[in-house]
């Protein structure tokens, strides 16, 4: 048994390829046989991944368990970003130009709305200083904006941990719910996918959710979603923090 774990651990990335292939194969069968394609196979596979991560336990989900460490390599930020960039092959510049200034507007409004709602709920639940307000508000944008804001304004590590948790919860909710709500939100063309990505942010949630909805829309949503994180990192620790600081004093 120990030898097997050793081999799997040493060849982690290759084992991850096999494991993910297996998860996808079974998920697509479940999607076809049990739900008649109503729930997309990709959505089931992603939910299975999240469940495994929960039972795996540690800081890196299932990848914290010996023999499964390769999952963190395959699903790490380098491979994720590389694969996201490659989806740009399916996007056309003329579609992006059509969205134009509204795309930029979405980035700002999405950041401000998440910041205000996140910070206000935190305020109502006892995190009343400007630093915590800004950090929790940043976490409501994405799990990258939260810790960057917290680090910049000097928030406590407890609040920063909460802000990461908020961002992760948001991305989990977006991942699972997008395929079901996409039609109701009118996400069926490149423009609405870009608006969706720009407002919601959460690159991993948006792109995973869109992948399970309609893979053709992934590059458009992912493009604006990555700029949402950039916008959040720009606005939250600066202008938005100054405003909150002024109002709370």
């Amino acid at each position: 048994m120990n030898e097997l774990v050793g081999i799997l651990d040493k060849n982690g990335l290759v084992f991850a390829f096999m494991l993910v292939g297996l998860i996808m194969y079974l998920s697509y069968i479940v999607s076809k046989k049990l739900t008649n394609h109503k729930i997309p196979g990709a959505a089931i596979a992603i939910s299975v991944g999240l469940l495994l991560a929960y039972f795996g336990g540690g800081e890196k989900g299932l990848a914290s368990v010996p023999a499964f460490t390769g999952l963190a390599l395959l699903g790490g930020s380098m491979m994720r970003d590389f694969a996201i960039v490659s989806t740009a092959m399916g996007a056309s510049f003329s579609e992006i130009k059509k969205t134009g200034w509204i795309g930029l507007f979405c980035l700002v409004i999405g950041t401000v709305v998440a910041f205000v709602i996140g910070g206000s709920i935190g305020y109502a639940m006892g995190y009343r200083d400007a630093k915590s307000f800004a950090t929790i508000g940043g976490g409501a944008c994405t799990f990258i904006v939260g810790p960057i804001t917290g680090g910049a304004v000097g928030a406590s590590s407890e609040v920063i941990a909460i802000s990461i948790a908020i961002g992760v919860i948001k991305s989990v909710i977006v991942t699972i719910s997008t395929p079901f709500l996409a039609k109701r939100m009118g996400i069926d063309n490149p423009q609405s996918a870009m608006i969706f990505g720009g407002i919601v942010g959460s690159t991993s949630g948006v792109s995973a959710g869109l992948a399970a909805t309609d893979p053709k829309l992934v590059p458009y949503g992912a493009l604006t979603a990555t700029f949402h994180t950039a916008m959040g990192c720009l606005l939250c620790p600066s202008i938005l923090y100054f405003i909150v600081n002024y109002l709370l004093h």
Partner: protein
Amino acid sequence: MKIYGVAILAGCFLIGHIIGDALGRSLHMNGNLGGVGFAMLMLILLNDYFKKKNILKPETESGMLFWSTMYIPVVIAMSASQNVKAALSGGWVALLVGIFATIACYALVPLISKYAQNKSQTKQ
């Protein structure tokens, strides 16, 4: 050769990251600001240019397309290596903020989407 496509992709990726990093540094933040977005924009423009000049060989293109089909598997591996337990143990604040922030964003999407559609229709 397929590797040419992969190399072009890698080049865009790295240049995007360098731009994002420089932007973050110039604004005194220890983060990469939109590196992936810049890389995507570059690849889209490059792809448009290649198509216009008709110089992209199918073999080269397939090297890039392979990675875009690997996208979903990568996302599944990513979700399996998230700290889901910590996200749920972040307590009520994390859960409530996460839920309400998402709902608020969702509510905005159809509104702005409709506005954008009306505007593009009046233009035409």
